Every structure is written in structure tokens, then in C-alpha cells.
């Protein structure tokens, strides 16, 4: 990790390459698929989830892990409807988190030297450089 007055850089492992930047949307609660992802509208429809109906479009989606069904891959299919997140950053992926990223063809990173869910807050500006294996976090102050 390196830190300047305005930004923090942390390293991670690339699951799917690419460079994007945008605003973070953080889910402290894990995300799940199967019935609980609305592919056409691009949000979770899991009852009582803090991100219920919150659009993921153009966000840097940050979450701890995928819980539940392999139907999580449907997050990847949000790309077909143009409502996909720009990138996914997670503490630990699982195979179907990886399949979702390969389906979406947007950057995904994991195994960071600091847990992204703990350090990133919704509204922070994130530069994702999955080609070189790091992210830069500009805190929203």
C-alpha cells in the first residue's frame, strides 16, 4: 500500500484485466445470484439487501464475497442490457464470481493487500488498473 495526501494505492490480483475509473458502490453484505439478481435492470432484488434496487451501472462494485447459488453468473449478463458495473472488486471470489467477470468482460480484482470492503466507501473515486494489478482510491471528502 502507498498513501499520499489525496489517494491510497493498494495491490491485488487480477481476475479479469482492463483499466477503468469511476465511483465506488460498496456492499458490506455479500451479493447473491439466481433469483436475486435482476439482469435487465442491473441490480440486486434480494429482500432486505442494503443495495436492493440500487443500480450498479457504471459503478465500481465492491463486495466481500459471493454467497449462495452459481446463478451469480447472471451479474455478468447485465452487460447485455448495458446496465453492468464498470468493475468488480472483492475480498474473495469464487468460481462463479470469476465466470461473471469473464461474461461481463470488465475488470475484476481480488486478493488485495488490504480488504477493499474495509477501506473503500460508497462515493469514493476508484481508478482500477487491473492490467498492472493495483487500484487507486481517492477518498470522497
Amino acid at each position: 500500500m502507498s498513501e499520499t495526501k489525496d489517494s491510497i494505492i493498494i495491490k491485488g490480483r487480477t481476475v479479469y484485466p482492463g483499466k477503468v475509473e469511476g465511483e465506488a458502490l460498496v456492499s458490506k453484505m455479500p451479493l447473491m445470484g439466481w433469483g436475486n439478481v435482476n439482469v435487465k435492470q442491473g441490480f440486486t432484488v434480494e429482500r432486505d439487501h442494503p443495495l436492493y434496487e440500487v443500480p450498479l451501472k457504471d459503478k465500481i462494485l465492491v463486495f466481500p464475497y459471493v454467497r449462495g447459488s452459481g446463478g451469480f453468473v447472471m451479474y455478468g449478463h447485465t452487460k447485455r442490457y448495458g446496465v453492468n458495473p464498470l468493475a468488480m472488486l472483492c475480498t474473495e471470489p469464487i468460481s462463479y464470481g470469476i465466470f461473471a467477470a469473464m461474461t461481463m468482460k470488465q475488470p475484476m480484482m481480488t486478493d488485495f493487500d488490504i480488504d477493499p470492503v474495509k477501506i473503500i466507501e460508497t462515493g469514493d473515486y476508484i481508478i482500477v488498473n487491473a492490467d498492472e494489478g493495483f487500484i487507486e482510491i481517492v477518498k470522497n471528502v
Partner: protein
Amino acid sequence: MYLNDEEKSILDGKQGYLAAKCMEFLVAYGEAAGAECLVDIDGTVDIHPGGNPTWVPDYRIPEEEIYEAAKRGEQFKVPTFSNKPTPGFIIDGCEGCGTWPSGDQEYCQQRLKDMEPLFQMGMIPTFSCDYYLTASYWPTAGQHCSWGESSAIPWLNAVLGAKGNFDGCFQTAYLGKVPKYDLHLDENRAATVLVTCETKLERDMDYDLFGWAVSEKLGMKVPAFMGIGKPTVSQLVKMNSSLATGGQVRMYHIPGVTPEASSLEEAFKGKKPQEEMNITDEDLRRVYNLVNYASDENVEFVFLGCPHYNIVEVQQAARHLYGRKVKADLWVMTSPQVYSMAEKMGLKDIIEKSGAHFMSGTCAGELRGELYPYSVMAMDATKQNYYMSGHLYPRKPQIWYGSQKECIDAAVTRKWRGEWR
């Protein structure tokens, strides 16, 4: 990712176009997962047939390629079982169940016919999320596998002691290879968290609630469970299903019960627990409240069989239904093999005489929008219950949760009378 000479030659197309396409997927997936190499599958594979048994569209194998391979007499490299078809359809008992097109026998026959190339290649028609109960052939401890159903992964790793991640697909079956990472590696299989259950688990429902409560706290960690008694097969299947719903527990140890831990010390492979936690009656109660999201007691639809009922669960359901008539719609769902056994035993008749539907091969959740737009439902599985509101979005169904007996009583009386204890 390292590839040996044989694997490189497959990738280079020396073993044909289809093998090269399959290898391209395994390489892309393995590299994304951080795997160092591939491993030969010496156990089994399962796939979700029906649409296209591939996880990533860019690596989809066109139907005509599968058809041609089958025609050439090509076979899957390893024993390959059919999980529940996706999108779902009903294998047995679709008549009059009120869904469309799955309620139409011709449609269901056509869906089966479409799978013929997969059968010719060796796919075994078990058609169930818990096909491992009826498969008649299991991987043994230590064998490498590639399965594709979240509720089955703990059965593979924890109960059988075989090794595998969630990645069963056409490619792993065709090549008999899979990226070697995560649960294929011994170092990721040891327990790190000691979980003590402080409440007595007795009913099947208790194990279902326990699985959810504990996995919500554990995420993807590997626990050793103490104080959970000696669960029956029904209870293990239910617990595994909720372990992969409330969180993502794919591997666990029950010292003295599961094969990789004859003792607590062995579960931790000689190391000390990194964490300890207790599960109390209050934890179970909280999950019970979470999955009871209904206030209207007038139940219209009851779904039983998530995961698909085994023969003992069907027997219990038939006993509760014997000589009674249901007022609400009731589906009792099982695997095709259990369906056939239940038919021979006269259980199918008992269930159908009550006015309930006895079916196999899918579930209400998998049929999604096909389901009649019921407002109030009841179920005996946290998994089916919790996903259902998402499946039916933007409608807001009310769903009760309780024991099998409470659900059947609700189908008979049309009133929900379930209670916590």
C-alpha cells in the same frame, strides 16, 4: 498457468477443434482463478443440461458441435451426471400442475429429446440438484471432481471427502480436466474456525436454520462443527443447502463423522483455530424470522422438495397426507429415480389421491415466471423460500417457512399455523 505437453497439444488443436475450444476455456478460467496447473479428474462431473452447459458465453460450444461430436461417437472422459436442467422443466408429473409450458407433456418430451447428443456422449440422466443421492456411483475420498450446484459442493468436499470447486460444465466433462486451485489443494481444506453449537439440533428444520446462521457468519471459511450430533442424510442435505445460501461454506468437518477429521485436532490439521464462535438458539430463531416473511395466513401454494426429497422424506410426506385432501396447491418434488421408487411403493398414489402433485426434475424457483401468480406460499427449505421473492420480482409474495408437517397441514387446511417451537 502451466500446461503439460498433452495439454499444450490439445490447445494447439492437435486433438481436434472441439478439444481445443474446451481447453481455451479451461486455460482462461484457470488463469483468472490463479490456478498453477490443471488436474486430471479421477472422480465425477455434473452439468446443468437444458440450455447450454457452459458458464461463460464466449466459450460456449455450439449445439451443432455437440451434435456432431455425439454422431462421431465421442464420449465424456469421466462419469458425467445430469444436474437439474436449466431452464427448468418437469421430468415426471407435469400433468395439470398449472404451469406453462412446463405443464405440457409434449414440451417436456421435446426438451428431453434435445438432450440426446449429451446422452449419447455419456451424460447420465439423474436430473436432480441432489443427484448424488441416487447416482449409484460416487467419487471416493481424495478424488478430483468438477461439480456444478452450490448445495452439492459441501456434499462433495465435506461429506465424501472428494475434492472440487463449483465448475462442472461441458468442457470439464469433455476433457476430464479442471483448474487445480482452492479446494483441490489440501492446504485449503483444513478447518480454521471452531464452531460450537449451543442449542440442540433435532428437527430437520433445525439443521436447515443452523446451516444458514453459521454460514452467514463464516462466509467462505472452513469450520469444524462441534455439538451438532449425528445428522441424518436428510439433515445433512438441508444443512448443505443452507450453508451455500446464508453464506458460502463449501467445506466443513464434523469430527468423528466426516472423512477428513476423525478428531477435532485432525480437522485443524494440527494447527490452532484462528477463530471460535458459538451458535445459539437465538441465532436459529433470527433466521427463522428472516425466512418467515408473511402475515396473511391463507396459504395458496405449498412447495416441498428443496433440495429434491429423498425417499424417506417422500415417505414422511405421504404419511402426513394419507387419507387427507389438500385445499391449497401442493407440489412434492423429487428426483426421477426417487419418483420411480415411490411409484412402486404406492406413495405416489397416496400423494396424488390427496390432490397434491407429485413431480420430479425441477423446482418452483427454477420455473420462475411460469409459476401461477400465488400471493401466499409455504415452504420447508430456507433456500427455496429466500430466493423466491427475487424470482418473482417485482411481485411481493408472502412466504411462510416451517417443518414439512406444518407445510402439509397448511396445504390441507389452507391456513398457516406454523410455530417456532
